């Protein structure tokens, strides 16, 4: 279970990205975090694994209080949180296999990782995951030879091989075409399901958020303005989050898409 208590983030520039955000995510729940650009979605996710240090407030992962952990403990805690990035953030000049195995870095020592001598079961798990996402044959390719969708799959493998309790997913589809976006979102959903993972998925596409989550949280200017089921996103709610716009069309689309998705 992940719990945020009054998390506040003020950047050095003085901008306040998060204003006293409190949020609780039970084990195994997939939530979508929506909101306009600059609402603090990315900051929120990065505060959880402390790629960005929260200014105030507390964050608990299970019983562990994350915000005060010293570096060594923090690294241990990070192993329990897999992160998936917007621009895939694969190390482009490393092979696919190395990128996947880099998810185990928190578990192996320096020289082991330096000579790429990962434990046998890590390698096996890496192959299993690559097979699961359909990229087994790409293991020795360099990451920059892959297409966007393939890269994101590798990114997913890297996060899953950490054997995490929680996935932090930052705009996984922002650089992908609509079809690949859906495939990736479905894959993340399935994998969370298979492994009983909780996930926070940042996404600006309301449609995808509704299709692939159990709960939607709307963020506006660093504050939570909506927290409820996906079908509760009525025009007035969307107006509250994003501002005035004709939302009817968007919501109609959702219904059609959901039918389409469920008929598959």
């Amino acid at each position, binding site marked *: 279970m992940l719990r945020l208590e009054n998390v506040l983030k003020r950047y050095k520039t003085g901008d306040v990205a998060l204003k006293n955000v409190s949020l609780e995510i039970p084990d195994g729940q997939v939530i979508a975090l929506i909101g306009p650009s600059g609402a603090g979605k990315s900051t929120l996710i990065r505060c959880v694994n402390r790629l960005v240090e929260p200014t105030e407030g507390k964050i608990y992962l299970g019983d562990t209080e994350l915000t005060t952990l010293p570096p060594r403990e923090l690294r241990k805690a990070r192993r329990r949180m897999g992160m998936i990035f917007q621009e895939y953030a694969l190390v482009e000049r490393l092979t696919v296999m190395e990128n996947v*195995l880099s998810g185990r870095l928190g578990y192996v020592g320096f020289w082991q990782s330096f000579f790429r001598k990962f434990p046998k079961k890590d390698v096996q798990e890496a*192959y299993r995951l690559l097979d699961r996402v359909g990229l087994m044959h790409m293991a020795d390719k360099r990451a920059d030879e892959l297409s966007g969708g393939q890269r994101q799959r590798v990114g997913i493998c890297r996060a899953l091989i950490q054997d995490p309790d929680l996935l932090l997913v930052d705009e996984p589809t922002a650089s992908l075409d609509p079809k690949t976006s859906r495939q990736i979102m479905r894959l993340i959903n399935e994998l969370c399901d298979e492994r009983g993972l909780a996930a926070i998925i940042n996404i600006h596409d309301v449609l995808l958020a509704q299709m692939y989550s159990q709960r939607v949280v709307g963020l506006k200017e660093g504050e939570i303005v909506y927290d409820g089921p996906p079908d509760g996103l009525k025009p007035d709610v969307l107006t509250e989050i994003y501002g005035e716009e004709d939302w009817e069309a968007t919501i109609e689309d959702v219904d059609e898409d959901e039918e389409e998705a469920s008929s598959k």
Partner: protein
Amino acid sequence: MSQPQTSYPDYWKKPPFIKRPWLRWGLIIGTVVYVIVALGTMDVNWVRVWEGLPRGRKLLASFFPPNFADSRGVIIDGILESIWMAIIATIGGIILSVPVGLGAARNLSPRWVYLFCRFIVSASRTFPEIIIAIFAVKFFGFGPFAGFVALSIGTVGFFAKLLAEDIEAMNKTQAESVRSTGSNWFQWVNYAIQPQVMPRMIGLSLYRLDINFRESAVVGIVGAGGIGAHLLTSISRYEYDTTASILLVIIVIVISLEYISGYLRKWVQ
């Protein structure tokens, strides 16, 4: 989690950077052998090295604190000569570079002019400024004039090459549109080419001034004027105080030149 359908390999090795094994091992072994042989033929006189270490310490000590007082006049004189030499060599070099650079641009000049100018460029680029300076001293006698000639030649090699490359890479349609107005060759160069290459050339000339100053500090070692002669004398007379202060002054000037030229270049572009 569902149990695995098949068993997966538990061993993975990073594919080697160089795929062909013979080439890979050849390069590795070749490098090792080379380094061993190279170090083996270096003929180091360790006794002499050991004897020299106290001198090194003494030399280092004279930097902290530096002593500028003893030989101030000489240092200022030499440094100024170096600076003026660098400036006039940069200007002279650039003036010479313009025709050479125009001639060495393929899209501007007839073939024989192009080949001739290219030859000048590569000839002046090949030899280090110091070697050119040695000959300049032979031809023109000791003093800053020889240094001026040597650095100017170096500048031509550097500047004309970049100018030519810049002209070759410029926007063709702009050049053609001016040409189509019926202008003559000089008007064409003046209106179509100069505006396109000018900002970068000003930046490059400042950069070259920077290089020329560094070189002007050493051409004195072979008698071509500037601070280098004093540096050489101070070392051979074991006056390390003077050596240290000369080096510090050079460092300070190089840093400030780099800073100023960086600032001006930003301002120009």
